[in-house]
């Protein structure tokens, strides 16, 4: 089975790799590009631990073929902090103790980033439904919701101040 040559942009960097036809984007990120921050919890799109943003859209990278990343812009957890500074969502997750084991955290942060890009002022209920595709078994979601809503408020304030 011949491999497919894929070129894409991952976290701002041009990357290329060879993908077997059945390889998922998740496996390409983890095994070909050594970006292991994106996690596999189920491999069936049910847990959200592998969430990444592709051309602005939140996807489960375990459900997307690596070959489909050709020419696309992929954002992963490794690209969330910029210039040595944590993203406000990352800051708020730490401040609110919104993680315990931390395994679901990269996926939740990417899902929350996509949420705030789509809806900068979500209600708690809107945020809960948006994040319903991301399983967390440790926290009961309470502190995650507080962190996301607090980060949303901070980002809105920063935007209006700018």
């Amino acid at each position, binding site marked *: 089975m011949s491999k497919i040559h894929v070129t894409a942009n991952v976290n701002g960097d041009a990357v290329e790799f060879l993908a077997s036809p059945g390889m998922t984007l998740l496996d390409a990120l983890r095994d070909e590009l050594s970006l292991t921050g994106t996690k596999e919890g189920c491999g069936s799109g049910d847990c959200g631990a592998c969430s990444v943003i592709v051309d602005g859209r939140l996807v489960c990278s375990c459900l997307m073929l690596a070959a489909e990343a050709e020419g696309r812009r992929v954002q992963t957890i490794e690209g969330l902090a910029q210039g040595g500074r944590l993203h406000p969502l990352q800051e708020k997750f730490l401040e609110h103790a919104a993680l315990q084991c931390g395994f679901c955290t990269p996926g939740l942060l990417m899902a929350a980033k996509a949420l705030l890009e789509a809806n900068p002022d979500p209600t708690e209920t809107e945020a809960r439904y948006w994040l319903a595709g991301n399983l967390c078994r440790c926290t009961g979601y309470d*502190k995650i919701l507080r962190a996301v809503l607090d980060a949303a408020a901070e980002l809105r304030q920063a935007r209006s101040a700018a």
Partner: protein
Amino acid sequence: MSETLQRPAGKAAFEVVGTRPVRPDGADKVTGRAAYGADFDMPGQLVGKILRSPHAHARIVAIDASKAKALPGVKAVVTAADFPNLASEIVEGGESASNTRDLSLNVMARDKALYQGHAVAAVAATSVAAAQAALDAIKVTYEVLPHVTDVLEAMAEGAPLLHDDLYTEGLESRPTAPSNVSRRPVSQRGDLEAGFALAEVIVEGSYRTAAVHQGYIEPHACVAAWSENGRCEVWSSSQGQFMVRTYCAKLLGIEASDIRVVPAEIGGGFGGKTTVYLEPVALALSRASGRPVKMVMSRDEVFRATGPNPAAVIEVKLGALKDGTIVAADVKLKFQAGGFPGSPVGAAVMTALACYDIPNFLITGWDVVTNTPKTAAYRAPGAPIAALGVESAVDELALKLGLDPIAIREKNAVRDGTKASYGPVFSNIAYLDTLAAIRDSEHYKAPLGPNQGRGVAVGFWFNIGGESSAAVHLADDGSVVVMSGNPDIGGSRASMAMMAAEVLGVSVERVRPMVADTTSIGFSMLTGGSRTTFATGMAVTQAAQKVVDDLRARAALLWEVPVEMVEWRAGAAHCLDPAKADKAPMSIASLAATAGRTGGPISAQVSLNAQGAGPGFAVHLCDLEIDPETGESTIVRYTAAQDVGKAIHPSYVEGQVQGGVAQGVGWALNEEYVFDAQGQMENPGFLDYRMPVASDLPMIDAILIETAPNPNHPFGAKGVGEVPIVPPLAAVANAMRRAAGVRMTDLPLSPPKVLAALDAARS
């Protein structure tokens, strides 16, 4: 929001303990840098995969791997023949003992496959595809046997027997025939018949729970490398690197010191990672192939072959006086152990009535083997199941007598001086304060909406101490490294750093806490039993105190005063000698910098066996709303109060409470193993095994009760991680009872069951 009841006035305030600093491992976890079990690779590693039994119960007649071994890229195939055939032997684990023979046979089936998903062979190959092809090429000849998955059917006369040599322990006389009941623990007090004769009102109920999985999001994963000199390395995600070492040494017949286990970050465990599944197999494959071997389970494998918590049948009969005083209790607990003995029914027997002071009781447990995955510990193992029965029955009693659900529990509550149902006399418990916190909460007084019900339930867990090691090292700039032997699942590194910082008088940011591998620190029991902050925290505190003592001695040397003339305060030595009042305080940094001239490096290690863990009590309050048209229910409000002794890092204590509640709600409403007629699990994925998601839950209010600090811990901590999952099953079921007007006893209380119960009540 959460609130904290303050400890009694007059106690010294802490500088660090009780504050909420950012966790030391936080930055790595929000950036994807933290390395979990599957995030590690070794040069030249192979892919390991396991062949699993398609049958729930079958004799393994023959395994022919010749074709698989001949395939390109296949480097090794192992079966039970590659592991020593162990005799029955009990080895102490974290909070439960394991029989190494059963553990070995669970890791790799020898003569019989005892559940669908049971490992029968394993391969190592150069790629996933080659490994999969090898699994497909292994020919296993099975003789399929009749199987049994239901606990009551497994106990019945004539049930298919899993083990020909299993004779029930705990009976008056040794049984003459083997059965599926491995043991029958009993706990009793007083005179049961006389107690019930005294009763003015009696309630009886039978309750069921399905098997549920711990549901950690990180599948089991490891890398193992066997060296030509017989020494080996294991990188794995588990609740205890020393547990992995002990079990691998036993199962492979090698010396423990020949195995170095490096703990990866662990992506959740909840008890399910207190044992081994992959590590011994990866080691055997590495030994056979001469290459490192990496193994990662699929979610399907996690469901079929690890965990779960047992399904159970609970029968409860309570007798009480009209004022609510419970005078007699008869509790029967029938637990599904899975393919091998070892359900947590013993702990369930001990905890069932631990919140109550009842003069006459009999609690009987049955540990029953079934053709289902071998059960593993799950957060307060056994206690939530027992609490489902007892708390539902107490709720029925309250309804029958027209009593307030908190009042009836207060009336029968254990308190300091009460002899616990399981033996010891309680002291320094805050159970009554915990009940009062719920009774006095705004939530308890809030009105309910239409189709809503409010449930109360309480729970108990022992918490344990045990063997722990820790070391504190000073760097030459006075910054601090804290090493311990316990994997950090929920934030324990933060607690370790905070306790060390408190003792040393430095800011928590100057302390770097690390989880050490098995060659870098003394033995430590695994992270389980809510023991780490208590027991390992005690070791860290004592090691930090030794460092302080050393620092004082160094200052005394430099000042030429007796050590008694040196006080350690705010991270510096202060000279108390009035004759040397001109001596400026010496900071930890300056003392560390001059350590070479005052005796050498400053570090201390402590290994101890911590005793006196304070038990945990939890009181939960749940508001639930039913959609009468669909049977769907929603948790609309939830408050959990807990006796925590002293919260070291309150945010992570609240997190334990909230997480336990969420797991308990899932257990109560949706989660279950569904087996078909062939004993195959029908829902081995997160789509059909439905754990709570963000939109299923409200905010969960945690009330931390700190009125009874644990006198056996330097800062008063009690274990906090397990008891939060004890009350929710019954709190939800009791809320459902009051919302629906009928008692539903068969968990999970999923919409079809609720709708059927509502329809039955309506017709």
